[in-house]
């Protein structure tokens, strides 16, 4: 591997990420399954980095899952996204921060469509106006929230309480980075580092002290694939895709996986349980599973936030061994305590539970 070759590509795929004043759009999956991640994105940006992030409670799903599931037509999704732009315009924001990779892909696709087929933009303006009476400005930039964390990765590193380093051995943790397909595979120029060697997560991992694993199936889909998962009969494909990735990364004995896509985080986490149930295989060292974390969760850990506040316990593969490696002391008994101290029901079948 020649690092200078990758650096050259990274230098080619740079995009403009604004410094401040973001209009935040949430992810359907993340706010449900990894609510802590979105919470801490806002917290890190606002409190740790002192940025202005605006969120409008009226914003909705982008309908991306419906779009990729063939139930929402393109005209509809353009109008829905245009409504988000209208909300941003009304609030005076020109930079969109998108929590979800599917949404990010949708936004990129729509912006590109409007650029190449201006008549579709006009049509959308008309549709939106007819439906809601709103008007909008095309935003100046769109950033995925991982882009934003990427931009401030060094700042976070400077404030780090913990690093991606095994405190027992002093060696960097081996981290698998997984980029959502729709982040840059459709439009490489919208992704940091392009499609083949994306830098967005690599940059964070390296800044925070970890070692990135470049394994053969790095580019492979996590298996979500919309219709693959949404149609029950197709879920075998979804599982197969995940397993393919796990088998490919297994020889490198990774300490954790960081993903920037809601679906990827969820499926690479949940399928480890399912594969265990179906085939009896548990990946990771000593059958501990491979924890799958979001980049905000990792940023939160690095900044020293409480793992249970970050919501690490809501993953199927529990992170206790990982926390131990990082030297983070977390009381496992507090995992399922509610804010008011009452004990929540404990999920069954957790890996490393």
């Amino acid at each position, binding site marked *: *591997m*020649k690092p*200078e*070759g*990758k650096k*050259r*590509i990274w230098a080619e795929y740079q995009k403009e990420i604004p410094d401040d004043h973001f209009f935040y759009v949430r992810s359907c999956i993340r706010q449900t399954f990894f609510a802590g991640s979105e919470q801490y994105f806002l917290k890190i940006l606002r409190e740790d980095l002192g940025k202005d992030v605006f969120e409008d409670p009226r914003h909705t799903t982008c309908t991306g899952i419906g779009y990729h599931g063939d139930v929402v037509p393109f005209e509809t999704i353009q109008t829905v996204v245009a409504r988000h732009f209208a909300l941003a315009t009304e609030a005076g924001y020109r930079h969109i921060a998108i929590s979800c990779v599917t949404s990010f892909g949708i936004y990129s696709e729509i912006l590109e469509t409007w650029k190449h087929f201006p008549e579709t933009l006009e049509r959308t303006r008309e549709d939106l106006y007819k439906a809601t009476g709103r008007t909008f400005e095309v935003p100046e930039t769109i950033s995925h929230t991982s882009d934003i964390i990427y931009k401030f990765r060094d700042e976070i590193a400077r404030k780090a309480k913990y690093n991606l380093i095994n405190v027992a051995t002093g060696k960097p943790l081996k981290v698998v980075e997984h980029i959502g397909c729709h982040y840059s595979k459709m439009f490489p120029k919208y992704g940091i580092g*392009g*499609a*083949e*060697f994306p830098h967005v997560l690599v940059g964070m991992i390296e800044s925070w002290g970890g070692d990135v694993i*470049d*394994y*053969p*199936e*790095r*580019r492979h889909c996590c298996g979500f694939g919309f219709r693959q998962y949404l149609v029950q009969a197709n879920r075998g494909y979804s599982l197969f895709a995940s397993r393919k990735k796990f088998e*490919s990364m297994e*020889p*490198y004995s990774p300490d954790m996986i960081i993903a920037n896509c809601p679906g990827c985080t969820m499926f690479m986490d949940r399928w480890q349980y399912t594969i265990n149930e179906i085939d009896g295989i548990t990946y990771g060292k000593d059958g501990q599973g491979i924890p799958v974390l979001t980049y905000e969760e990792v940023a939160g850990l690095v900044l020293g936030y409480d793992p249970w506040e970050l919501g690490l316990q809501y993953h199927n593969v529990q992170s206790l061994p990982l926390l131990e490696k990082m030297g983070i002391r977390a009381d496992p008994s507090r995992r399922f305590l509610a804010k008011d101290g009452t004990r929540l029901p404990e999920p069954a079948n957790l890996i490393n539970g």
Partner: protein
Amino acid sequence: MKGTQKHVIIAGGGVAGMEAAGALAEMGYRVTLVEKGQDPGGHLLQWHALFPDSRPAEEVKSYLRKRIGNHNITVITGTAVEKIKHHPGGTVTVNLSGSKEEKADAVIVATGFDLFDARRKEEYGYGIYDNVITAPELETMFNGGRVTKADGSVPSRIGMIHCVGSRDEKVNNNHCSKVCCVTAVKQAIELRKMMPACEVFCFYMDMRMYGPYYEELYRESQEVHNVNFIRGKVSEASVNINNRLVIKVEDTLAGRPLKMELDIMVLMVGMEMAEAGTKLAVASGFRLGINRFLEAGDHHYGNNLSGVSGVFYAGTCTAPMNITDTISHARAAVAETVRYLDGR
């Protein structure tokens, strides 16, 4: 013509330029051969052996060197031709790099081709993975007499990836570079001869063995040298924990995806219009075709004509060609030039 010796400038000192220069000088014309590199010879300089008969490239190189040894030829190296302009009255002025200007009675453009920059096919990891090399780099290894991995070890499996930068809309090249198929087969045979224990695979979309003895060479590669062929375009490459390349391809004949580990991946980089040639064309107002090579006056019977009086095209600046065709094309350009000069 005697007395006042007519002067022809040739832009580009590759195979076409050298052959044209030689032919014109032989007929008594004064020729200035302008080469931007340090030595005339073009891409041939890197080559070790030529298809289809594995003849040493040196033989053709020395033929061409002898060709430009004529006293009528002045060779200017390290200089690029930047602009060509035809003036009423027949003089053609040629702007050279370093703000020099030359006058001539006619000009032959033989700016040749550039090899496709393999880094543009990012998914193959050229420049990133240790053992991804290009066809000319393999020739360099042949020149050195040893083909090894980056760490110096002996490869046990080599893959030849056809159509890198050719027939690929994603890199804006829809054209076929013509010579890569047969080059791959030639190199595969050389590899097998050199290392009988090393498996060699060609990954192709179509085998375009268009020239004389090419198809025979293809057959020989299968029959005698056990070269393997897999029909499918390699979609991506990565490295595994043993630092071996892992490629993904569809075996289109089986209709199934295929994964294979390779020690060395040789990218059969195609031909593109030379960057210098493009600049020259833009500055001089020459037409470029949809393949971005120079567009000749007539595709069938005037493919040395530029459309500009006194300016002629020779060789791969007009389209990908093998050496045989390049030399023929250069000779045809000379014929056109002479006809033009005589008719004036």
